[in-house]
């Protein structure tokens, strides 16, 4: 089985999405799946990269989109890739029927804020003749960083959910509901996450030696 994991974060290897995608790829490989990872932003920068990704989608039995939530849906370059895949699949006489799954993380505490993005991925699968294979969605994605194991509790829920998802996807199944539930569990209490977040922005501003306050209004009619 060939799996293609498309990472939709512009931050590439330094992103939470890359961490999640890498762990899923490892899990798939442990289950004898040939898993290939492709960063979408970088791929779309050239015609060759774009063609390579589209060819890879055509040649895959399983496609997994891994991305951060941007303004309640997919980051724009991933949207572009979906448009291109859809166009190509209408031109090809008998495109394959790969399965499509999605892994979404957002910076808000509530995993349900990813629901619209998951809905878009599912509808894309249905309208382009792919088979929907489920999703994992989590809030508090801002705390993942580059290494999931550094999370409180060693990121056990996330790692277990990814393992369960990989095992099921490798067997030709969908992501199990148990994995979706486990993945969506909050990493810490809501009050703590928002406190850390609010302090974190101010600390970043100071670290970057910004001349503007956090509340600056550059186009200040309002």
């Amino acid at each position, binding site marked *: 089985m060939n799996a293609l994991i498309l990472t939709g974060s512009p931050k590439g290897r330094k992103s939470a999405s890359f961490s999640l995608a890498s762990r899923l790829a490892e899990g798939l490989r442990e289950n004898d799946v040939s898993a290939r990872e492709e960063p979408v932003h970088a791929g779309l920068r050239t015609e060759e990269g774009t063609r390579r990704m589209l060819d890879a989608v055509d040649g895959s039995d399983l496609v997994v989109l891994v991305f951060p939530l941007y303004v309640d849906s997919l980051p724009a370059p991933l949207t572009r890739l979906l448009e291109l895949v859809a166009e190509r699949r209408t031109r090809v006489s008998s495109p394959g029927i790969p399965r499509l799954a999605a892994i979404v993380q957002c910076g808000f505490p509530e995993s349900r804020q990813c629901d619209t993005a998951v809905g878009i991925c599912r509808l894309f699968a249905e309208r382009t003749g792919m088979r929907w294979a489920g999703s994992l969605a989590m809030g508090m994605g801002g705390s993942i960083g580059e290494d999931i194991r550094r999370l409180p509790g060693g990121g056990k829920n996330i790692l277990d959910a990814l393992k369960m998802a990989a095992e099921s996807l490798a067997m030709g199944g969908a992501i199990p509901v148990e994995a979706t539930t486990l993945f969506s569990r909050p990493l810490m209490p809501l009050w703590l996450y928002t406190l850390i977040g609010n302090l974190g*922005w101010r600390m970043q501003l100071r670290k970057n030696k910004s001349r503007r306050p956090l509340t600056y209004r550059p186009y*200040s009619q309002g």
Partner: protein
Amino acid sequence: MKALILDGSREGDSLTPVAVLGTTSALAERVETVALFKLRDLAIAPCAGCFGCWTRTPGECVIEDDARDVLRSYVGSDIVTYVTPVTFGGYSFQLKKLLDRIILSVLDPRFTTVGGEVHHLLRYRRYPRTIGLGTLPSPDPEAERLFARLVARNGLNIHQTVESIVLVGVADPESARRSAEKLLDRAGVPA
């Protein structure tokens, strides 16, 4: 009053330009000025995900391109209309690319609660009333529902209730204008 139209049409898309014409005509009867940005003609890079608009140059993206002109116009408008082909229930790449670049800039990164869930504080005291107008070549109730939900969720980001409509197979500007009129009425834009 000033209105802004964000035209998210794709190359070869025949329906969204008609919706843009109809919306422009409907808005012109209610506001003093209507500004239109055809997004695919502008040089706008995708968001780099650096959060520089919050922690380096608060209120402004660190990338200097045409998105800054759109942001300036957005902040100075009373009404902003997203016009886009409905893309699997979402926006076109062109509109999404712009929104990824400007929405964080108009928010204060600190958290607050809106509608029972966590969102960000507002950077500005006032925001344009947002309206979503999607186009589809044929009926697709699921895509239409998803589009309405996405537009509504985008409204929560700026602490607003947002109205939207999907024009299905509307190919003449007069029908598009009438639909846009209804949408403006629903959104409470005075005639």
